[in-house]
């Protein structure tokens, strides 16, 4: 005798637009060896289908609109290494990123709401904290928000 699974009707949960997550994959050993992020940081976002480009480079161009929520977080290429974002240098008229932590942890992320976008693309730079080095390392090349 076979038993058939009872058919179950499921519907995908309806959600609002997701915040745009920007992840920086950091090769901590490479950054510490050269004290530069060139070739050692890979940026990605979750808005590729809307038109973001430059995936896997520092010069990620993230497609945004005024009112979008952005969320930056780092990811260490080797799980034993420590990587955090120390700051994000961007025109405060466009966005003012602030540091927050996941509740109950000391793991941080940075978040901002896009206030307004000028006609051209907006460059920004990320400062990273890597390993036990006390001075942050600023990204070698700018990343961009594009309208």
């Amino acid at each position: 005798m076979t038993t058939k699974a009872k058919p179950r009707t499921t519907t995908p949960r309806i959600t609002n637009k997701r915040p745009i997550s920007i992840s920086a994959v950091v090769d901590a050993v490479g950054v510490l060896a050269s004290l530069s992020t060139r070739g050692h940081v890979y940026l990605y976002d979750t808005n590729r289908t809307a038109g973001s480009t430059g995936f896997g480079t520092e010069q990620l161009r993230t497609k945004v609109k005024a009112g979008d929520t952005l969320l930056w977080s780092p990811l260490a290429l080797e799980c034993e290494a420590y990587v955090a974002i120390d700051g994000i240098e961007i025109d405060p008229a466009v966005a003012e990123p602030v540091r927050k932590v996941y509740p109950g942890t000391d793991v941080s992320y940075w978040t901002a709401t896009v206030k307004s976008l000028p006609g051209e693309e907006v460059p920004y730079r990320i400062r990273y904290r890597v390993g036990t080095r006390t001075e942050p390392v600023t990204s070698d090349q700018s990343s961009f928000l594009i309208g």
Partner: protein
Amino acid sequence: MPQQLAIIVLVDVGNALEAKSLEDNTYLFDNMKLQGSENEGTGKLVTAINGSYWSDGSQASEQVLNWLPYSLGSLPPTVPRGYEVERARQTDQKALADLEALVNRPAGQGADPSADLAQIQRSVGTRVKSNRRNRGPAAAKILDLTGKVVPADSSAAHSYPAPVITDIYGEAVDEKIIYPAEYGSPDLVTDGWYWSATVDTSRPGTYAYTMKIQLHKLVESGTEALWEPVNLTCESWLRITSEPKRNGFTGAGLGLLPLS
């Protein structure tokens, strides 16, 4: 020298579920860029595995591969292990404390208790029913991307559970180049399980392998929320080379170090 090689599989889970494909939604990395790996950070990673052999031709070193699947645009893998379960417990305790405060409040004070009760109900969040038939995420609550619980009546975007590798197969396995298996581990970042493989470096060449990866889609069945597994596959490559075992200091054959 025996070496632990890590391959990170970064999946844009939201877009992969929408497209029902891992193609263009998966980015692979390894820690062998300086040793010759190509296409780091793309879906076309070729991992370099540099083996060595003794003068009689037998394999001189054992290379070990480890795979770490991560989710792009979810809670990061660096939050403490079992974070979703811990957050579920914390918010339950908070709701109980709020409820106690509400009960102990003298009558006639404060606003409408039913409004306060509704607020407590929202702060409890939404529990996802565990699905024991699959090795899916543990029963916990829906969290958003900042670690807060998502109320049942809210349509706030949620964080996806990390992808799970369920199998590794294909040319490299059929040809007996790699011997992959899943292991239990006290590792803090992979929730206790990881895929690992030893490599036969005696037959140089480029070999493809395929990973079966399980993602989880949040669905509603009546009033219940469930993580529905979605199985997808993704291909990657290994390029095996092998050279005679040599002294890493002198570059010459094996012997005593030139100490004076």
